């Protein structure tokens, strides 16, 4: 129910509306809950409403941490994580 997706603002529309895009899919979202939305911004959208801005700088910090953890694992001693048979045993859905 509380699921939400990160979208990129393509264009501002009339009133508190914006056209937003994710993975090539475009939709109309309400920006009534977020101030000063501009084209190129990332928003987190739930049930047609942007509930907050996605903080791109913070997202990049988290992604960089994950990239480092992933690289360390690849270069590591090959020990499999507990309860799993290593990367290949991870369930489908991981990218």
């Amino acid at each position, binding site marked *: *129910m*509380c*699921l*939400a*997706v*990160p979208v990129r603002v393509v264009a501002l529309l009339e009133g508190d509306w914006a056209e937003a895009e*994710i*993975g090539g899919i475009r939709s109309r979202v*309400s920006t*009534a*809950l*977020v*101030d000063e939305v501009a084209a190129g911004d*990332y928003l*987190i959208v*739930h*049930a*047609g*409403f942007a*509930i*907050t801005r*996605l*903080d*791109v700088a*913070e*997202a990049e*910090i*988290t*992604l960089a*941490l*994950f*990239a480092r*953890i*992933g*690289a*360390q*694992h*690849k270069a*590591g001693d090959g*020990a*499999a*994580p*507990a*309860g*799993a048979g*290593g*990367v290949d045993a*991870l*369930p489908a*859905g*991981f*990218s």
Partner: protein
Amino acid sequence: MRYLLGFRDRGAAAGLAREIAAAVVPRRRYHLMEFCGGHTHAIFRYGVQDLLPANIELVHGPGCPVCVLAVPRLDAAIELAALPGAILVSYGDMLRVPASRRRSLLKARAQGADVRIATSALDTLDIAAAHPQRPVIFFAIGFETTTPATAHLIREAGRRGLENLSVFCNHVVTPAAIAAILDEPRVREWGRARVDGFIGPSHVSAIIGSRPYEHFAREYQRPVVIAGFEPLDVLQSILMLVRQINEGRACVENQFTRGVTSAGNTKAQALVADVLELRPRFAWRGLGELPYSGLRIKPHYGAFDAERRYPIAEHATVENAACQCPAIIRGVKKPTDCAIFGTACTPRDPIGACMVSAEGACAAHYKYRRAAQPAPA
């Protein structure tokens, strides 16, 4: 897609799993409760439990608004849909949820009621404008993530003078439910509440901020980590909780820094505060009546309140005695501890709160884990 798929990276998941395995104290047990149905779903979909050492147990909490809506409120929505000429507008998740006497909104629609599915609360504005002679009622449910949309709808209905539009408000607040889980006296009968730390809501917290959880961390000495809904977010949050528990700390930490601040979305908070107010009591399916846990429409927007405009009788209903949902959503029992799980109670024909939506603990367990279970004797 970078800000979605980037948080599902296979190599990083394996690396985080290894860090968690290295961090746990072997003789200790870690019972971590995720409050949100969104986390429950991610945990099952990505098999997160299988990536963890055996002494970390994930406990699935009550945080699915579809699951916790009390049956008498759903019955009332079905009655509203049956008013002469009425159009009931609902989020799609609610249509299959079983009401009393085996009714549902879907069945009501099949029997001729005009029940429409909205993807946004604001769809209700266009429906009301297109049918000025008919009562158009929005069936509002959800936690803090969804509440501001309802508040905005009510304001817009006022601005546009849509007198035929009203809202049946069933919004609930998260902190009250967490307190209920920690305070529940019956937990002592059932056994210890097995919650050593909380995986905190991501999108609820985008609205309310991380500050409201500080009370729990302090008062109940349980760490809370606000976590994103993607699998790497969940894994990193588990690692953060394990470290806090090991160090004897009970703080609020924020893993979901890309969406949550300490103060939250103050514009949305102000909107909700203008339009809605706390009810002294509100009943939750599976948790019972909780003080100051639900919201109603303030008197100055009373013209848009379906509860003021239409006679709504709430008839008491009785839950199936075999259903273990009250213990499951408090973290005391697991879906497989319930005698009717997967037999009398299935996602196709749900009996208890945890089976009614895909985000409920029992439904997620049924969908993703049943194959791994031994067949019932």
